[in-house]
């Protein structure tokens, strides 16, 4: 497996709305995460943007296309395009989600949770192993926000996440907002969840804003990060130490400076953790 270049500090999710600004102003953001599915198999200006940003900043690749939990065969065409992009741009990290996104050639383009069973853990871990072998690199899998729970689940979400990481020998992208959203929706304790996470496998964290929908929280990535998510992030950094952290924003995308302010807040939390540790 190929070792990748390390990144640190707080990166920002690159969105088309900010392309021009970032190219012009070259902000001091240490790295950017690209939603790699938007570039795979596309040409012209779309590819050119990826080329441009790869020359300006370290990049991480984040995708939803592997559908690691699906019972369909792994999509070799998608993996082939991804592998080519990895070889070309040498991203610092490659991540996808611990979920499935479709079945029998119907795609929901959403992150569907797995049932937390032995069968599902073996299934998804086996596919992560196949993907890692094919891509010749370890990948990060991200815990997703969820709005449903299966009757058949035999363990908690946190136990499932930790178990799959162990089985597949993969890394973990811990999305703090997703933990909070799922904890709220399914009434579990977010701090207990953190306690079960495999510290050495956590290579990145995500932060984003949710939306209140009456009796549940929806993971819309359309607002600033909420106070309880900051609190949980603080807790996570205290427990695990500093990790590369990403600010994600996907809906009602504001000026780039708003994302920078969120990144600065996260940076302060990382700095404080480092001075404590020293």
């Amino acid at each position, binding site marked *: 497996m190929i070792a990748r270049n390390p990144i640190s500090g707080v990166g920002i999710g690159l969105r088309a709305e900010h392309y021009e600004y970032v190219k012009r102003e070259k902000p001091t953001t240490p790295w950017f995460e690209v939603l790699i*599915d*938007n570039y*795979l*198999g*596309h*040409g*012209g*200006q*779309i*590819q*050119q943007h990826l080329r441009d940003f790869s020359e300006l900043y370290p990049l991480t690749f984040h995708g939803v*296309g592997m*559908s690691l939990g*699906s*019972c369909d065969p792994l*999509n070799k065409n*998608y993996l082939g395009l991804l592998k080519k992009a990895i070889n070309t741009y040498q991203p610092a990290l490659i991540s996808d989600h611990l979920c*499935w996104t*479709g*079945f*029998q*050639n*119907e*795609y*929901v*383009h*959403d992150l*569907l949770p797995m*049932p937390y*069973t032995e*069968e*599902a853990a073996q*299934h998804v871990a086996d596919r992560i192993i196949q993907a890692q072998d094919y891509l010749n690199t370890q990948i990060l899998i991200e815990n997703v926000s969820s*709005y*449903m*729970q*299966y*009757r*058949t*689940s035999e363990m908690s979400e946190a136990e499932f996440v930790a178990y799959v990481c162990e089985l597949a020998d993969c890394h973990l992208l811990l999305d703090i907002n997703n933990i909070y959203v799922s904890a709220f*929706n*399914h*009434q579990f304790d977010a701090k207990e969840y953190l306690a079960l996470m495999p510290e050495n496998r956590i290579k990145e964290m995500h932060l984003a804003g949710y939306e209140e929908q009456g*009796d*549940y929280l*929806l993971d819309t990535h359309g607002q600033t990060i909420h106070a309880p998510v900051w609190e949980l992030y603080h807790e996570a950094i205290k427990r695990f130490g500093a990790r590369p952290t990403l600010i994600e924003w996907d809906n009602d995308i504001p000026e780039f400076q708003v994302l920078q302010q969120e990144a600065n807040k996260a940076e302060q939390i990382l700095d404080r953790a480092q001075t404590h540790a020293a």
Partner: protein
Amino acid sequence: MLPELQKQFMDGLLRKDDRVYKQLDGRIRSAQQQLDIYRNSYQGGLLKAMKDIYPVTQRLLGGEFFEAMCLRYITQTPCQSLDINKYSETFAEFAEQFKPVDELIYLSDVIRLEWGWHRAYQTADITLEDFTPLLSFDSAKLQSLYLSLVPSMTLLASSYPVDLIWSANQNGQADTPENINLDIKPRYFTIWRNGFDSHIDLIEPDLFEFLLSIENKLNLGAIQNNNSNFEKHLVTCLQRSYFSAYHF
């Protein structure tokens, strides 16, 4: 177990089959409520994609009507592509059958034009083959040749000036189609991309026929028999880089 669960979920989400309900733990919120959250998110995602692809159609119909029409389409048409950018290829055919827009006779062709424009922008780049060897081929060899159009290309024939309607609705301008004379001769287009630049070329009917024959995989011999301007068109297409490759 897992395949069955995934099958039931997809049937529940896309086809309102309620077998999946018994798979869901309803202690905190009902199974139906859980599935509805995912259905809304699924439909919202596809709707957002369609809004990005069809800005002119949306302007012609008004936002609310456009949304309602898209949702009807989305309900009938599960997404069968991993790449969400490939969704709604059949929207123009849907619009043709959609009674409430019967009076907007040009609408389905505007949709085809916007789809072609979107496709041209998204399509992967390819390296064009070197066509200079063609110059040295004798006529028998040329006759047995097949050509391929660049993959970004869409051919569109319309009885309406959809290109004028389209341009009148670019860059924040909104011109009602009432100001455009709809009563003109059929128009023929290629919609394609060369490097970074997407084009909508208005072309002669005869050149359109020529390109259509190439798209339909006829060899040059067969095309020559039906098209008297064959040589002229061949040169035009080569000059404009309409072809990506040739083979025998």
